[in-house]
């Protein structure tokens, strides 16, 4: 009846029923990210031990794109090493810039549901909010 919007089932599901949207008490790494274009904000919490992301979560308010992106990201990186998480982040950024190959997008698993963002400049900041925040934690907060 109505036109197809880019909100596919994966995005809708992660937005409506996020698995990782909650607080973690005693999170070792905690960082706030703000989307400067709309003021939406997100807090990312991670527990990293022996260079492995043991646990992670997020809180905040935002649009379906930013919320689903954060939830999918945490799905992907929990249990990974810091270096692996950095690699995934780089791939994600490549996909958003529209320069990732099909194989690379495949490696991103459910995050591939956000590939159309590369044609939607107004929503790029929403999609990358959690990933930028993650990248900042991994490169600056970890010594």
């Amino acid at each position, binding site marked *: 009846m109505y*036109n197809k919007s880019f909100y596919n089932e994966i995005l*809708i599901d992660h937005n409506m029923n996020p698995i990782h949207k909650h607080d973690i008490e005693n999170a070792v790494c905690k960082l706030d990210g703000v989307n400067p274009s709309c*003021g939406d904000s997100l807090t990312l919490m991670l527990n990293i031990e022996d260079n492995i992301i043991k646990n992670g979560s997020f809180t905040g308010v935002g649009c379906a794109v930013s919320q689903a992106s954060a939830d999918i990201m945490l799905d992907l990186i929990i249990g990974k090493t810091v270096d692996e998480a950095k690699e995934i982040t780089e791939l994600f950024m490549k996909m958003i810039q529209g320069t990732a190959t099909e194989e690379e997008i495949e490696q991103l698993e459910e995050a591939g549901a956000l590939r159309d963002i590369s044609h939607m400049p107004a929503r790029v900041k929403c999609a990358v909010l959690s990933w930028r925040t993650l990248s900042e934690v991994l490169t600056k907060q970890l010594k």
Partner: protein
Amino acid sequence: MTNNNSFDAHREDFPIFSDLKDAYLDNAATSHKPYSVIEAEQTFYERYNSNPLRGFYPLSLEATNQVELARDKVRGFINAKSTKEIIFTKNATESINTAAFSFCTGNLKRGDKIVVAVTEHHSNMLPWRSAAKLIGADIEYLKCNNEGEFTAEEINRCIDERTKVVAVGIVSNVTGRTAPIDLIVQRAHQAGAVVFADGAQSVPHMKTDVQALDVDFLAFSGHKMLAAMGVGVLYGKEEILDKMPPFLTGGEMIDSVTLDEVTYAQLPSKFEAGTLNAAGIVSLGTAIDYYNSLDIEKIRQRELLLTKRAFEGLSAIPNVHIIGSSDHTDHAGILSFTVDGVHPHDVSEILSSDGICIRAGHHCAQPLLAHLGVYACSRASLMFYNTENEIDKFISSVSTIRQRMGYKDV
């Protein structure tokens, strides 16, 4: 009685609609331009182009003449007494900055009070805050209730003997509600304060008579009323403008300059430093001709009818909430709304996929949204050239949003 359908024919006056199939409901951000306006701007460059600085050769005199003709049309459109009271700027924002800094530095002292309505667009709030800071004056906010209304008690409480300026928008760009300018002017003048009215959302949509309103200043933008981008107007009462220091200084706003002294030009040149956007100004004059040919009173009636249709449609959708008054006649073409559980950016994204252009976010009025307890919202804003079909398409799209975002309600 207006023949409402006769307006549909005027859509053809706008070239963009021969290409654009989307329903454009973001008119509060900027309006479209009719052929006549676009041609007027082009004609200026083709036939009159020269610096409109009262030059010594016929072409420059003609350019000056074109600007002055437009100035007189603007004067007539808002019923100002004199063309000395019509200052051209680049937009409403520049008009407000000009008045705020010039009036405040010339007339206020530490401890004086500036009243700013909480409903204001950032453009009619931040310049007053900056000017207040510079001078050491205080800011107090005139608060509206949940329906976006200013009560007489609040007006009387807020505006007191210490108040020197009251800055208020005639129509809010979020709630669409018209402020009780008569009450505010009466109270302000009684207290010895001037009233600065932001007409950015009112001048394009309703008859404006600055003498009847008795406001001391009025600002508006040409681009929201069918004219080119890059032209704004600052109206001020002559006796007040006359005593104010210039805001921007430089070329074309002086009588004489020596190394030690400067004598500023008379009004309105004193406030028009540098080369004006003459072609844009001419386009504003042509836009006013267009308004006059349609009759702004009929335009208003048409827009109120479209508003009613949109208001009733939105009100009937479960989980959709209109911000501001529960009476559609208070909305003057602007309907801001929220959809439970769906972020405004997702609302606009879905509408966009259905070919409907609306605005989402904080609408440059963050303090107002915070005051109303709304995080962000979506806004549809109408213009006489919108059609009932477009409204229906918009309503039917909004009614599918929750379902498309995964909610199971029917």
